[in-house]
């Protein structure tokens, strides 16, 4: 047989296309997750989906939603992902980039059973499945009397001991907004929030995990941190304490679907399974500690130290005005750099 240019090109195309053909036959969903053990509830949902539909699998890729959005933007809207669990700020950015396909809530019966405070967090495109709380994490070895309110962080005894995550992360952006709120200003007065943080001269962690490591190493005594990260660290034996502030501030996360996915029906079913009571209860337990969004799902005793658990705490839960705060991320990061790195 003589191999000519046509044979060569055909063989190359076949080799390149083969994994894609195999993937489409196996019906693999690609999802942005956490990249940690906190993906377990997602994997549990995927396992149930796989039982219902033979050959359906889920590949969870860990990473920040912001990084995934940049990747999709670079690919000019051609998302390599089918779905994601995204916090409200990332959803606002993704809606701005027009890369999400709204989920049809009529195809998700359990949507009606959600705590009515959560659906707005999904900005009309997704299904809220859990939430994380902002709280004050502290190192018990270096801080004997922990702060009890946000404003306490500005007390003289904590000078030089407080850490902050860069505002590029939801945690850091939320912390700037919380500083505004703590001193009676609107959530979106980021200039004021940054000025308040500047007064503290905080040690800055480039990301929430790096901030947590600074707390572990004793370089800082206290910082605003996610409740689930603090709980996970404390569960491993680290000397972490956690303060639930009088009005717990939370960030709901929602299942969202990217445009051009070929698995829209499966994604709707995935969201429905995620809202089942079994999964909602499973994810609230250690070592996950996620807050449930389904009405009536109680907080287990083991997570009560970190999650709003009493009726009063649950009733007081509030979110940041992300609609106004999230679009300011770029400007806030720039202003932050002018103040702290300029």
């Amino acid at each position, binding site marked *: *047989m003589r191999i000519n240019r046509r044979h060569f090109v055909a063989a190359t195309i076949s080799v390149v296309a083969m994994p894609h053909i195999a993937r489409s036959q196996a019906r693999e969903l690609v999802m942005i997750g956490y990249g940690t053990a906190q993906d377990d509830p997602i994997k549990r949902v995927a396992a149930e989906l796989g039982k219902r539909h033979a050959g359906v699998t889920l590949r969870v890729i860990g990473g920040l939603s912001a990084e995934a959005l940049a990747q999709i933007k670079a690919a000019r809207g051609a998302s390599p992902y089918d779905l994601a669990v995204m916090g409200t700020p990332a959803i606002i950015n993704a809606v701005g980039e027009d890369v999400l396909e709204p989920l049809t809530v009529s195809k998700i019966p359990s949507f009606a059973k959600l705590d009515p405070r959560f659906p707005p967090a999904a900005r009309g495109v997704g299904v809220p499945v859990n939430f994380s709380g902002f709280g004050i994490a502290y190192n018990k070895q270096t801080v004997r009397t922990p702060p009890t309110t946000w404003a306490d962080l500005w007390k003289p005894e904590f000078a030089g001991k407080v850490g902050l995550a860069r505002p590029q992360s939801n945690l850091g952006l939320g912390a700037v907004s919380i500083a505004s709120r703590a001193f009676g200003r609107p959530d979106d007065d980021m200039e004021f929030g940054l000025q308040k943080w500047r007064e503290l001269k905080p040690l800055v962690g480039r990301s929430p995990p790096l901030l947590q490591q600074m707390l572990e190493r004793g370089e800082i005594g206290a910082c605003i941190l996610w409740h689930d990260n603090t709980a996970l660290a404390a569960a491993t034996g680290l000397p972490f304490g956690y303060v639930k502030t009088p009005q717990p501030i939370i960030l709901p996360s929602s299942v969202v679907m990217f445009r051009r996915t070929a698995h829209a029906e499966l994604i709707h079913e995935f969201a429905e399974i995620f809202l089942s009571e079994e999964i909602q209860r499973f994810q609230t337990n250690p070592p996950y500690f996620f807050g449930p969004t389904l009405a009536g799902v109680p907080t287990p005793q083991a997570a009560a130290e970190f999650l709003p658990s009493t009726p009063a705490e649950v009733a007081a839960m509030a979110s940041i005005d992300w609609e106004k705060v999230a679009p300011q*991320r770029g400007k806030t*990061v720039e202003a932050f750099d002018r103040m702290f790195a300029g």
Partner: protein
Amino acid sequence: MTPTALHGPFIDRLLSGRGIWPAVPAIIVLAIVAVIPFMVLLSLGFSDVVSSRGVIISQEFSLRHLKAALSDSLYWTTFRRSIGLAVTTTLLCMLLGFPVAYLYLIGGKWTRRIILVLTIAPILTSGIVRTYAWIVILGGRGVINTTLMQLGLIDQPVRIINTHWAVLIGMVQIHLPIMILPLIAVMTRHDTRLDEASANLGATRLGTLRHVILPLATPGLGTGAALVFTLSYTTFVVPQLLGGGNYLNAATMVFEQVVYALEWNKGAVTAVILMATCLIGLIGIAALTNLATRWTRAGRS
């Protein structure tokens, strides 16, 4: 059946190594991973883009983003810091790397083996791993602080991590092998009879080093300096992990503008400035290397 009959003329040409065919795969790879993204970068940095769902609706040439960057004090501060860091790293690597390469030149078989292992071994591990090792060493409860406290020299841990000094220490350690290896490559080609001739003519060891070995090592120093400068000027990982959240260099600035702020025009302009200034730095190093080579040759003659 002859091999020609089996392959056909296309495969024959490919396997013969004639013409441009052997270079085609590399050219394609370079075009995909370097030239095309660079052109996209240029087009984004020097235009106003309106897009929807990732599709560009309109794009007009504009110098607005470049002008904004050049009139922004944050850019100047960040680039000054990046250039300062890269130059200091390069100079320290030259100062620390040359004696190691010299030891390799004059050392015995085992000395040479040990130097090679110590130089190459760190490269075998990821830069992230090596940088994390520095976190362990420089941290509040790290090896340095613990030792100083145990010796009673300090009461409280000294803050080293999350400072400019931590970044500099990490950069020098990460890039030192990149300086040593070209130096060793150049210095081992050096004709040792020149050293003997120098000694026979009454030169001291220091004199031989100054007037014979150092001039001959200049191309190696130039190559090493160019590599270390480029890598440390555009580095991302070390400042990210050792500098703390309020340490900003040019590469982290590009990353944050593109990924977190989704401001691609800004990110593209910053990347173009980064590339242009890096190129100027490389031209400067090449010119200095040529000058040093000519000067030392003139000195010898």
